[in-house]
């Protein structure tokens, strides 16, 4: 292929210098370079491929709405609790501005999008965390939205499905963030007591307080390939135990090998896998 390029160049008697006008004609972000294998491809092809690198299978981070578009049947998603908004309970300087700017950037009111929708025709309540919003960290609004989503699933007697992506509890809301771990847990306990299904899908990255609460206790725990999943950060652990950790430490595959996950599922087959699981849990058979 490289030889081809050179030979083609030789045949050309002149070169084309792109004008300034044509430069601006090309929309920004038309090409995307894979952070893992450096493969460069058309962004539109990447999106068609569910944001998985065609060369190395790297699973790119997704926004909550991108996730909806590949996971929920078209035009069936109805969002919930978009009216909740974050306050600044500890009066942390700059916190309100950060929330505002992330909100504008992502089009979300907080770091999780919740709602109802169909997965291959079966109704579910879904919560999708978005790591582009304050690292997906959990404060009062994230905790409240997830809790309300679980309650809705319990009430409607449908499965609750969550895609996690979070750095953990949100520092700026202090202990209130910590308590969201307990809050979501009491709701999930009730959901479980009523015999309802909860599937947790861990995506990159799921750590800290989110890993140590709802993310890890699905009836079924799935994860995307190579997702970073863990309680403490790698640096903290290395400083504590004073040894270098293996390369694959805290990856989805590492957790699978240590018995913490039911399966690692490629993004291209996630919808089918979940829809089959939902079907197998349908009340009264199907």
């Amino acid at each position, binding site marked *: 292929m490289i030889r081809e390029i050179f030979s083609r160049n030789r045949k050309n008697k002149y070169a084309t210098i792109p004008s300034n006008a044509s430069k601006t004609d090309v929309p920004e972000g038309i090409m995307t370079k894979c952070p893992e294998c450096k493969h460069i491809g058309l962004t539109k092809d990447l999106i068609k491929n569910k944001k998985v690198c065609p060369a190395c299978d790297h699973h790119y981070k997704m926004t909550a709405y991108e996730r909806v578009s590949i996971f929920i049947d078209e035009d069936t998603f109805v969002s919930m609790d978009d*009216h*909740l*908004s*974050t*306050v600044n*309970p*500890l009066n*942390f300087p700059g916190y309100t501005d950060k929330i505002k700017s992330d909100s504008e950037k992502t089009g979300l009111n907080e770091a999780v999008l919740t709602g109802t929708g169909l997965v291959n025709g079966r109704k579910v309540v879904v919560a999708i965390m978005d790591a582009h919003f304050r690292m997906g960290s959990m404060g*009062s*609004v994230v*905790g*409240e939205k997830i*809790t309300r989503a679980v309650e809705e699933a319990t009430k409607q007697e449908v499965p609750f499905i969550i895609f996690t992506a979070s750095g953990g*509890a949100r*520092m700026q*809301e*202090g*202990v*209130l*963030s*910590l*308590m*969201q*771990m*307990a*809050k979501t*847990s*009491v*709701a*999930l*306990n*009730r959901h*479980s*007591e009523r015999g309802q299904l909860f599937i947790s899908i861990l995506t990159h990255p799921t750590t*800290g*307080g989110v*890993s*140590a*609460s*709802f*993310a*890890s*206790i699905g009836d079924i725990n799935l994860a995307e390939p190579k997702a970073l*999943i*863990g*309680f*403490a*950060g790698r640096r*903290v*652990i290395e400083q*504590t*135990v004073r*040894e270098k*950790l293996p390369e694959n*430490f*805290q990856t989805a595959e590492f957790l699978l090998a*240590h*018995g*913490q996950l039911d399966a690692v599922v490629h993004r291209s087959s996630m919808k089918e896998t979940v829809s089959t699981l939902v079907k197998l849990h349908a009340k009264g058979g199907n």
Partner: protein
Amino acid sequence: MVKTLPFEEPVIQLRDKITELKDFTSNADVDLSTEIQQLEDRLQKLETDIYDNMQPWDRVQVARHPERPTTLDYIREIFTDFIELHGDRSYGDDEAIVGGIAAFNGCPITVIGHQRGKDTKENIRRNFGMPHPEGYRKALRLMKQAEKFNRPIICFIDTKGAYPGKAAEERGQSEAIARNLVEMAGLKVPVISVVIGEGGSGGALALGVANHVHMLENSTYSVISPEGAASILWKDSSLAQQAAEAMKITAPDLKQMGIVDEIIQEAVGGAHRDTKQQAIYMKEALQRSIDTLSKLSKEELVNNRYEKFKSIGEFAE
């Protein structure tokens, strides 16, 4: 000799002076009783000034005091017939958490708590009170056992956090904590948790999904240590003192946020100055909680816990 903390230095110095004067007058032929009386009045005023106006960072120091009473101290002072039960039945016994059965005012209860060491040797054995997954799984096993035999559960929280180590990750630290949160939510017996020292993050909360959550006056409960918060927020762990204030981690802060039900008063100068007196305050608070909660049915207990945690959080709608 109890270790003195920086903020109480003036009190200690004055107290030493008074003792010195008293010694002197008992041997010499002078009457200094008026002077001593004056000094003692001043001491009392100083004590009130200092101990009634403790800053968050002062409380952090008291909460971490090496001689502060631990779970086993309270168990010894408050309960009778304590029998320690070990192990999680699948991996090992984590001595950073202790638990067992005992009698409280004659009634059987299950008691579980984080356990720090009092000296270096014990701290190594108990991993400085920072549990591994098997510690949380032992705790859960004992809670389920308590539920089966219908006895109340009392948890003492006292940890910097769950241990951030390699083995802990391999054995599922996240799952162990998460499992406790969800299972505690559904326990059909009264659950009372008391933060007695440091309540550090998820590792503390894993014993904290209770019907009543109390805090000792000088204990702390937080999402991250002041040092950790300072290093993440301002990239400088030496700003811990400011972080302790900003993060709102003291008992009065948590009471105000509606997270804590009752603040248990401490002996003057902190629990470590009078373990026996502290145990009396603790016992009274526990009895009040048990009296209240034993009136609730199994279903009401679960609902009560649900409503309590469901209501925590601040947002606009």
